[in-house]
């Protein structure tokens, strides 16, 4: 709550700043507002749909079952699931750390957890949608095609360095 309030405050300061420029350089204020309006429109066109999908994913993907399937003998299935939950879950990366830590404690492989964190960070579904809208599908698809093998390599390297399990 505190953080949100602070952000609103920053927003209001920025708006005041935009207004304060007007007497000196009216064309700059007009330009800022015009650009902001365009971006706002583009965002509002896609945001409600993304948020609804996010909520649905969060509700329909059973996390408890998933927690049990990331262990040592989980094989490709476990890795696939690590990818999927990372991709589908909601929230910034620092929300994932406690989850990842508890998964490790419950016996998940370092490899799977590294992949879980990488996919949580870099291939989130809402992000992919926004990216396609703003940067085009070629950019998005190529980035995903490169990020997925990178995540697997990062996982493999980390398991080599740290060992199968982290204390």
């Amino acid at each position, binding site marked *: 709550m505190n953080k949100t309030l602070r952000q609103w405050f920053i927003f209001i300061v920025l708006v005041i700043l935009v207004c304060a420029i007007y007497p000196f350089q009216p064309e700059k204020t007009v330009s800022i507002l015009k650009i902001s309006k365009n971006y706002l429109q583009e965002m509002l066109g896609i945001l409600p*749909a993304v*948020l609804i999908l996010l909520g649905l994913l969060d509700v329909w993907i059973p996390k408890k079952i998933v927690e049990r399937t990331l262990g040592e003998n989980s094989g490709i299935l476990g890795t696939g699931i690590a990818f999927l939950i990372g991709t589908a879950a909601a929230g910034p990366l620092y929300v994932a750390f406690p989850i990842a830590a508890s998964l490790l404690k419950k016996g998940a492989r370092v490899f799977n957890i590294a992949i879980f964190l990488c996919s949580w960070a870099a291939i989130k579904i809402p992000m992919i949608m926004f990216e396609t809208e703003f940067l085009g599908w070629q950019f998005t698809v190529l980035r995903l095609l490169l990020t997925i093998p990178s995540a697997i390599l990062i996982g493999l390297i980390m398991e080599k360095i740290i060992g199968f399990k982290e204390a």
Partner: protein
Amino acid sequence: MFSFAISFIAIFLLIISAVSDRKKTMIALKIAGKTALNLMPFLLIIIIVIGFLLTFVPGHLIARVIGKNSGFAGVLVSALIGSILLIPHFVTAPLAASLLRQGAGIMAIAAFITTLVMVGTVTLPMEMKTMGRKFAIWRNLLSFGFALFIALIMGLVLK
């Protein structure tokens, strides 16, 4: 349009979800609403910042520092900025798009986005505390390295 297709899919899935489980669907909508409220101020801030950026920072400056011809130095600069900044997923793409429009190179933008999401300098202390020092440092180092690699290839392929 892409946003239209996504909206259509979202409404379709929402109806299926509502038909099969009212309660779960309500929770899903609540999560959506909560996320929207949390996100709103930051989205508005970024939108105004983009307005400022595109109005006051001349395109040729951005183009010179992280533009097509800035080479590896430009990629490194954007990767470092991306590693330091902490920005929600939702706003990375619009911000990157505005930089591209101002003349930034694809390679630099790919490095910026990838490090932005995968490397967290600000969250590193927290990651070390929860995941262990070794795990956190190696994950960030490797992510930074691979981000540069991803950017290089994207720059070469997309031009």
